[in-house]
């Protein structure tokens, strides 16, 4: 300003007005403070809403990705591995889970898995999805509607029993399969999910369980339970007619190939989604998942190349799945370099389980549900205890909130005991539960189709149709 007189006058006037304003009643100041507080509250709400929207978007996407792992991922993967005459029945066994387990989850099994209960199983509080709405449950995920959490977990409950069907492919009655799966969901899956992830669960690492077992996305809950139950099924049902003398090569490795690639993609929802939000933990789980799968592909292929002279396509995709299985419990706890180590180990180990151990014992785990999921899941759960890093995910804290060591590599040797506790409980629950259920279904409706139906193929004998209908050239 050019004229100092005008400046002085202006300052003077401002001062007079200010003094006048201050001289007024103090209620004006209070009103201003209140308005400011309201504005801040509104802003905080807007920030929380934005975070919630971001997290919810990722979790709904992840839910869809995990469903895609069952259909069409696993459906194609398994469908290609069986003989032509059983392609539809094998696909139906997994697809039926998408319908049956969904309704069961809404009626009771969500409540049994995630409702409040005791250390072993949830209660009846959330049957018919009572109380499962838009309001988040901070014990599980504070930023997404509980209903999103519920539907995300449902997708895991669908694929887990579907994985078992690989062990009894080409010989189990459709009706017996359906009843078996309903009982299995209630007797094996719900308690295991509750123990590892549910409120008050015995093995829950993030909510202070008695034996905090690190299982980020379901190494024990999904893969050990399904894989071990698969082995029990294979042993109980006995081999397919003609196994192992008659050759039963996959009818289309092409279908399996497409299925395995879809599984790989879907697994990002499975593992990175298990962060239950769209933050940096999801990124770290995503990266670990991808590196684990890549390393296991190379591990299996290298072992096969060395042993058989050629790296097969089926070997490469089986290796990828084995790696994805093994990295599942570790995904949100380990660094990318650790995930490579886990993947390589899983690829070689599962190759050995599928090619050597199965032949040694002679069980007909038709599509290697045990060799890949049971073996890979067990190995992964153990290695999680070794490689878990508090820098990646500070899950253990002392009373003062200070970060504690996670895995054996960081000096927490005790974690291996907790991992073993989780693995042992999963094995025992799977074996006992599956044997009992198989016995019950065997006595009441019978497990296997007749010899004639098995020779004819399950597509025709169980469903009255064929996957590849023969038509004369029109």
């Amino acid at each position: 300003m050019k004229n100092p007189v005008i400046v002085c006058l202006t300052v003077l006037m401002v001062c007079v007005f200010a003094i006048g304003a201050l001289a007024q009643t103090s209620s004006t100041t209070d009103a201003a403070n209140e308005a400011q507080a309201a504005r801040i509250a509104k802003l905080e709400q807007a920030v929380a809403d934005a975070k919630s929207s971001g997290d919810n978007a990722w979790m709904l996407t992840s839910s869809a990705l995990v469903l895609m792992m069952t259909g069409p991922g696993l459906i194609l993967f398994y469908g290609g591995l069986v003989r032509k005459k059983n392609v539809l029945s094998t696909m139906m066994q997994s697809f039926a889970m998408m319908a049956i387990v969904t309704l069961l989850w809404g009626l009771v099994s969500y409540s049994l898995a995630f409702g409040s209960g005791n250390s072993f199983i949830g209660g009846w509080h959330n049957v018919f999805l009572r109380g499962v709405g838009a309001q988040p449950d901070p014990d599980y995920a504070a930023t997404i509607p509980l209903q999103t959490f519920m539907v995300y977990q449902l997708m895991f409950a669908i694929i887990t029993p579907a994985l078992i069907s690989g062990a009894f492919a080409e010989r189990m009655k459709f009706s017996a399969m359906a009843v078996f799966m309903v009982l299995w969901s209630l007797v094996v899956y719900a308690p295991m999910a509750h123990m590892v992830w549910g409120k008050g669960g015995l093995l829950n690492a993030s909510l202070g369980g008695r034996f905090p077992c690190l299982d980020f996305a379901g190494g024990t809950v999904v893969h050990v339970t399904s894989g071990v139950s698969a082995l029990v099924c294979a042993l109980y049902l006995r081999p397919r007619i003609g196994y192992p003398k008659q050759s039963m090569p996959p009818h289309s490795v092409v279908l399996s190939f497409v299925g395995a690639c879809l599984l790989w993609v879907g697994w990002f929802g499975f593992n990175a989604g298990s962060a239950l939000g769209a933050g940096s933990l999801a990124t770290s789980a995503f990266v670990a998942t991808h590196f684990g799968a890549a390393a296991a592909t190379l591990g299996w292929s290298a072992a096969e190349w060395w042993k058989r002279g050629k790296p097969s396509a089926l070997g490469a995709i089986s290796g990828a799945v084995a790696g994805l299985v093994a990295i599942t419990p570790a995904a949100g706890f380990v660094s990318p370099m650790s995930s490579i180590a886990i993947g390589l180990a899983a690829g070689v180990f599962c190759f050995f389980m599928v090619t050597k151990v199965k032949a040694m014992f002679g069980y007909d785990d038709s599509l290697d549900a045990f060799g890949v999921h049971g073996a890979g899941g067990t190995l992964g759960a153990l290695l999680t205890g070794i490689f878990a890093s508090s820098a990646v995910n500070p899950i253990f804290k002392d009373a003062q909130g200070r970060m504690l060591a996670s895995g054996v590599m960081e000096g927490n040797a005790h974690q291996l005991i907790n991992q073993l506790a989780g693995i042992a409980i999963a094995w025992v629950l799977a074996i006992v539960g599956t044997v009992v259920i198989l016995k019950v279904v065997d006595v009441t409706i019978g497990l296997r189709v007749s010899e004639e139906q098995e020779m004819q193929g399950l597509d025709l004998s169980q469903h009255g149709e064929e996957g590849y209908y023969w038509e004369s050239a029109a």
Partner: protein
Amino acid sequence: MTKVEAIIQVSKLEAVKDALHEVGVEGMTVFEARGHGRQKGHTEFYRGREYTVDLIPKVKLEIVVADEMTEKVVGAITTAARTGKIGDGKIFLSHIDEAIRIRNDERGESVL
């Protein structure tokens, strides 16, 4: 009339077809076939399990020709289909009593 049945390598079908056209054969029937002679088979591995594939994909041609054409046709096939290795296939000749054209009941060599 003579029926020439030739079982050949799948990869030689195009060459044999061309050779047959050159000697004047106008019609033929081709089948996708599987079988083996002295070639035996090969092994395939699926997740460590070994499967012997002893029925190998082949192509079978059936051609019926006038008797005087027979040697020319046989020569065309053997020249075109030969690699000199086991698995080149075989030719079988047999006598044909009659040929009938479905469209108009025509009979004899003119049908061919």
